C-alpha cells in the first residue's frame, strides 16, 4: 500500500505492485554422481505505474520503508520520461476488483518437504537402471522445483495472494557407437514439466522408464536414415505440444500481431485482426484451439494473472477459423469492435505475466491446447489408418520464422509406417512446414482418452527476454503429405 500511495502521489493514474518470494531447488546428476545441488531464494518487489498513458516500472530486492516509496517514485518518474515519445496513450479495459483473493496450485506434496537424500537416491537409482542397458554410455538426470509466493495489489483495490508450484524431472541417455563414429541421445520428453508437487516426480516412474529410454538411445544408433520426400505424419502428443506452441500459440499473441515484439520475437501472419477474425481458415473443421489458465496441473494455471484479472477460458480457433487472440487489459480494448460484434464484453483474457518481481509484466501465452476430436480415436488407430508415413514421438530440434510461417521440427523417435504398421526405426528426420498448410493437412485427430498435457519451461519473449512456463494439451494427429528432410551430414 505504501508503494501504491507513493505512486499515486507521484502522479500515477494507475499503479500495481507485486511482491514475490521464489524458491527454486535443483538437483542434477550424471551417471553415478551428483553434479549440482542448489537451493535458491529470491525476494523482492516491483511497481508498475501508468502516468499520462505511459508505463513505468521499477523493482528492488530491498523491501524496506525507505526503498518501497523510492522505487514507486522511480517507476512514476520513468513513466514520465517514457511519455516523451508517446503517440497513443495506454487505456485499460475494465476488470472486476478482487478484494481478498487466495489461490494455490493443486499440489499433494510440497517438493520442499521431501528430503534431499530421497531425491538424490531416486535420480541415482534411475541412472543405474539406464546404465545397465548395454551400449548406453552417459546419463544425465535432474529435478527442478519452484514455489512462488506472490502478493499482488493494484490501485483499483484488487489484492491477491497466490502460491504457485512447478515440478520438472528430466533424464537424457546418450549412446556412443563403439568406433566413436556416431552418438545419439534420448530425452525423457514423455515426462512433461507440470504445475504439480512432488507427486509428479513419483508418477514419472524414472527408475522404471530409464531402461526404455536407454534402449531407445541405443536403437537410434542403428536406425535407418530417412529418405527425403513427402510423408503422412502421425504425431504423438509428446511431440505435437511443441508444434502447437510455436505455430499456433505464438502467432495468436495480440502484442505480436500489432508489432510490439517486432524487434525480437517477431510479428505474426495472423494479422491484421480485421481480416482474420471470423474469416481466416487456420485448419480443418475438426480443429479447435482453446486458451485457458485452468487445466488441472497445467503450468499456466493461476487464480489471477499479473494484473489481477481472473483468467477465462476462450476459443482461439473455432472449427478451424480464427476466433480470438490472447490479451491483457491494455490489449483487450484493441479488439473492442470484435467483442461487440460477438455480443461479448470487452475484457482481458488474463494473459499478463512476469517471470519475477524484477521484471515488468506483459502479454504471455496461457495454456493453448488442441481439443480432442469427437470420435475417441487413439494413437494406434491413427497408425493403423496410415499406409505410408512416419510416426514421431517426443519433441526435438525446433525453429520457426518471426511471423510463424516456416517451421522445422525434429523429434526424439521416428518410426516408419507401412500398411498401417510400424516397421522400424528411422533417424535424421525433420519436417519443414508452412503453418496454415500444415494444419489444413490435418485429417485425423485423437479423442479425449488420448489427450495429454505437454509442457514448456523456457517459453521466451520480450526484451529483456522473460521465461514463461506453459502447458499445451493435445491428442495425436495425422497430417497428409508433409515435406521431410534428412539432417545427417558427415563432418
Amino acid at each position, binding site marked *: 500500500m505504501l508503494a501504491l500511495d507513493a505512486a499515486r502521489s507521484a502522479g500515477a493514474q494507475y499503479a500495481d505492485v507485486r511482491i514475490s518470494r521464489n524458491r527454486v531447488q535443483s538437483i542434477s546428476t550424471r551417471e553415478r554422481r551428483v553434479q549440482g545441488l542448489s537451493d535458491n531464494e*529470491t525476494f523482492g518487489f516491483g511497481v508498475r505505474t501508468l502516468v499520462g498513458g505511459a508505463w513505468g516500472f521499477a523493482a528492488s530486492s530491498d523491501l524496506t520503508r525507505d526503498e518501497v516509496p523510492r522505487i514507486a517514485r522511480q517507476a512514476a518518474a520513468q513513466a514520465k*520520461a517514457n511519455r516523451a515519445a508517446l503517440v497513443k496513450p495506454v487505456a485499460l479495459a475494465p476488470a472486476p476488483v478482487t478484494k481478498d483473493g487466495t489461490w494455490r496450485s493443486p499440489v499433494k506434496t510440497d517438493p520442499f518437504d521431501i528430503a534431499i537424500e530421497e531425491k538424490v537416491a531416486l535420480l541415482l537409482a534411475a541412472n543405474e537402471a539406464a546404465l545397465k542397458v548395454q551400449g548406453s554410455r552417459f546419463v544425465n538426470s535432474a529435478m527442478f522445483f519452484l514455489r512462488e509466493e506472490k502478493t499482488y495489489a493494484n490501485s483499483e483495490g484488487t489484492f491477491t495472494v497466490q502460491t504457485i508450484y512447478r515440478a520438472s524431472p528430466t533424464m537424457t541417455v546418450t549412446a556412443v557407437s563403439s568406433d566413436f563414429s556416431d552418438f545419439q541421445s534420448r530425452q525423457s520428453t514423455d515426462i512433461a514439466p507440470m504445475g504439480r508437487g512432488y507427486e509428479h516426480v513419483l508418477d514419472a516412474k524414472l527408475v522404471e522408464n530409464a531402461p526404455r529410454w536407454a534402449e531407445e538411445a541405443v536403437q537410434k544408433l542403428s536406425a535407418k536414415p530417412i529418405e527425403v520426400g513427402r510423408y503422412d505424419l502421425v504425431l504423438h502428443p509428446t511431440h505435437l505440444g511443441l508444434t502447437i506452441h510455436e505455430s499456433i500459440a505464438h502467432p495468436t499473441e495480440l502484442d505480436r500481431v500489432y508489432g510490439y515484439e517486432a524487434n525480437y520475437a517477431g510479428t505474426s*501472419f495472423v494479422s491484421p485482426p480485421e481480416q482474420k477474425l471470423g474469416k481466416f481458415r487456420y485448419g480443418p473443421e475438426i480443429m479447435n484451439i482453446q486458451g485457458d489458465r485452468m487445466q488441472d496441473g497445467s503450468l499456466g494455471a493461476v487464480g489471477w494473472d499479473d494484473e489481477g484479472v481472473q483468467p477465462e477460458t476462450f476459443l482461439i480457433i473455432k472449427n478451424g477459423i480464427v476466433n480470438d487472440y490472447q490479451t491483457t487489459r491494455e490489449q483487450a480494448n484493441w479488439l473492442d469492435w470484435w467483442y461487440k460484434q460477438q455480443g461479448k464484453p470487452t475484457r482481458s483474457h488474463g494473459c499478463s505475466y512476469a517471470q519475477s518481481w524484477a521484471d515488468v509484466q506483459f502479454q504471455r501465452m496461457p495454456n493453448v491446447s488442441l481439443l480432442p476430436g469427437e470420435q475417441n480415436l487413439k494413437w494406434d488407430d491413427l497408425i493403423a489408418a496410415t499406409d505410408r508415413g512416419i510416426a514421431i514421438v517426443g519433441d526435438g530440434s525446433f525453429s520457426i520464422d*518471426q511471423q510463424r510461417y516456416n517451421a*522445422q521440427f525434429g523429434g526424439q523417435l521416428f518410426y516408419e509406417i507401412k500398411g498401417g504398421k510400424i516397421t522400424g526405426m528411422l533417424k535424421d528426420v525433420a519436417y519443414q512446414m508452412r503453418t496454415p498448410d500444415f494444419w489444413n493437412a490435418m485429417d485425423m485427430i485423437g479423442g479425449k482418452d488420448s489427450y495429454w498435457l505437454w509442457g514448456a519451461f523456457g517459453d521466451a519473449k520480450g526484451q529483456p527476454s522473460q521465461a514463461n512456463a506453459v502447458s499445451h494439451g493435445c491428442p495425436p494427429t495425422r497430417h497428409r503429405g508433409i515435406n521431410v528432410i534428412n539432417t545427417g551430414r558427415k563432418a
Partner: protein
Amino acid sequence: MSTPRSLLTAARTIGREECEALAKRALSFATADETRITINSGGRGNTRFAVNQISTGGDNYDATVAVRSTFGKRSAVVNTNKLDDASLKAAVQLAERLAKLSPEDPEAMPELGPQTYVEGKGWSESTASLDPSSRANAARAITEPARAAGLISTGYLETQAGATAIANSKGLFAYNKQTALSLTTTVRTEDGTGSGWAGATSHDFSRLDPVALGERAIDKAKRSVNPVAIEPGRYTTILEPTAVGNLIQFITNAMNARNADEGRSFFSKAGGGNKIGMKVVDERITISSDPLDPEAYANTFANDGQPVSKTTWIENGVVKNLPYDRYWAQKQGKSPLPTTGTVRMSGGTASLEELIASTERGVLVTRFWYLRPVDPRTILYTGLTRDGTFLIERGKITRAIKNFRFNESPIFMLNNLDALGRPVRVSASEAGGPGLAIVVPPIKVRDFNFTSLSDAV
C-alpha cells in the same frame, strides 16, 4: 552499498571493500571444511519502443549471495538475496545441511587458494549513469526519423552495471565491475513488406551512435520492400558481421574437452580422443578470447575463481585448445583452462562493400533468427534469415529477396571461405541483450545451404 547519485540512476553496485566485509561476515558463520561466497550486485535498466513510441521500460536492482559449502567430497550451493546477518547465517546453515546430505562426489575438487588477477577494464561511467530520460532520448533518435519517413520502428535499449566478487575460506578474493549495453532496432514499412534491422553493443554507451544505427535500419527497411522468391539451394553468401557472430558462438559453445574425449562432440576424434592439433576450418581462421580485448572487455576470473587470460582456441584453422574443467584436466594430465566471455575471429581488411563488389551472384544476409541445433555431431544448426536479405548480381545489390531457412554448420561454412572483411564488435544475441562480447568480420562463403523459403517479412 554506494548510494545512488540520483533517483533514476541504474548504477548501484556493492564495492570491493563492502564485498570483502560481506564475505567475511558470511564466512564467519561457516563450519564446513571449505566455503565459497559469490556476491553479485547491480542494476539493469531498459527501455523498449514499439510502433514509434516507448512501450515499456524497467529499472531494477538486486544483490545476491551464493554460498557453496563443502565437507570432504560433499557440497551444495544456496543462493539468497537477503543480506542481513540472520539471512546470511540461515543460507550458510542450509548450504551446510544440504552438503552433508549430498553423496560424495568422486570428481570433487578443492577450493583454490589466493590467486593473482589482472584488473578488469569493462566499467564505463557513460553506461552506468544512463538514466530513463537519456534512454528515452536514444529511442527518440530512432523513432522520430522513422516516423518522419513513414516507417514503423521497434527496438530495445538495455544497460547493465554490476559487480561480482568471489571469496573463499582459503583466502581467495576476486572482484570485478562491468558495464554492458545494447541497442537494437527493427524498422518495418507500413504495408509490412519490408523490414530492416541494425544493432550495436559495447560496455561504453559513448561508443554507440543511435542516430546512425537508426539510419541503417531505415535504409534497410526501404530497400527490403516487396522481396522476390528465388529458389532455395546452395549460394555464395555474404554474411554481415552480426550474422557471422550469430553462428560463430556455436563453435566456441561446442568446445569442451571432456565431451570431446567422451565421444559426444564435433571435437571428438574418430577412434577416441579429441581434435586438438587437427585442422577443422580454413587456415585464415583464428578464434580467440581475451578479457582485456579493448573491443570486448570481460571478467578476468571464472566462476570458481580461476584467473582468465587470453586464449587461442583455433589458430590458422587448427584446434589449439579446448576448455578443460579442473577435474578433467587433472584426470587427463592437462592444465585446467576456463572458458571466457568473449570471442574474436580473425579477419582481413576488405569492407562489406568490397566483398559485395567482388561477387558475381550471391545472397547478402543481415542477421539470422531462431537458431537451433539439429545435429551436434557436426554442429549443424537450422535457422532463418531476417530483416534484410538481398540478391547480389554482378557486384551490386539488385533486389530484396524472400527469407530463407538454412541447415548449415559453421564448421562447413568456414571450410567454404572465400573472403574476410574487417572485424567489428557485434550485437549477436537473438534476444537483443548485450550477450557474449563478439568481434567478427563480414565473410563471403561458397555453397551456403539454404533449404526452404519463408513468407515471413
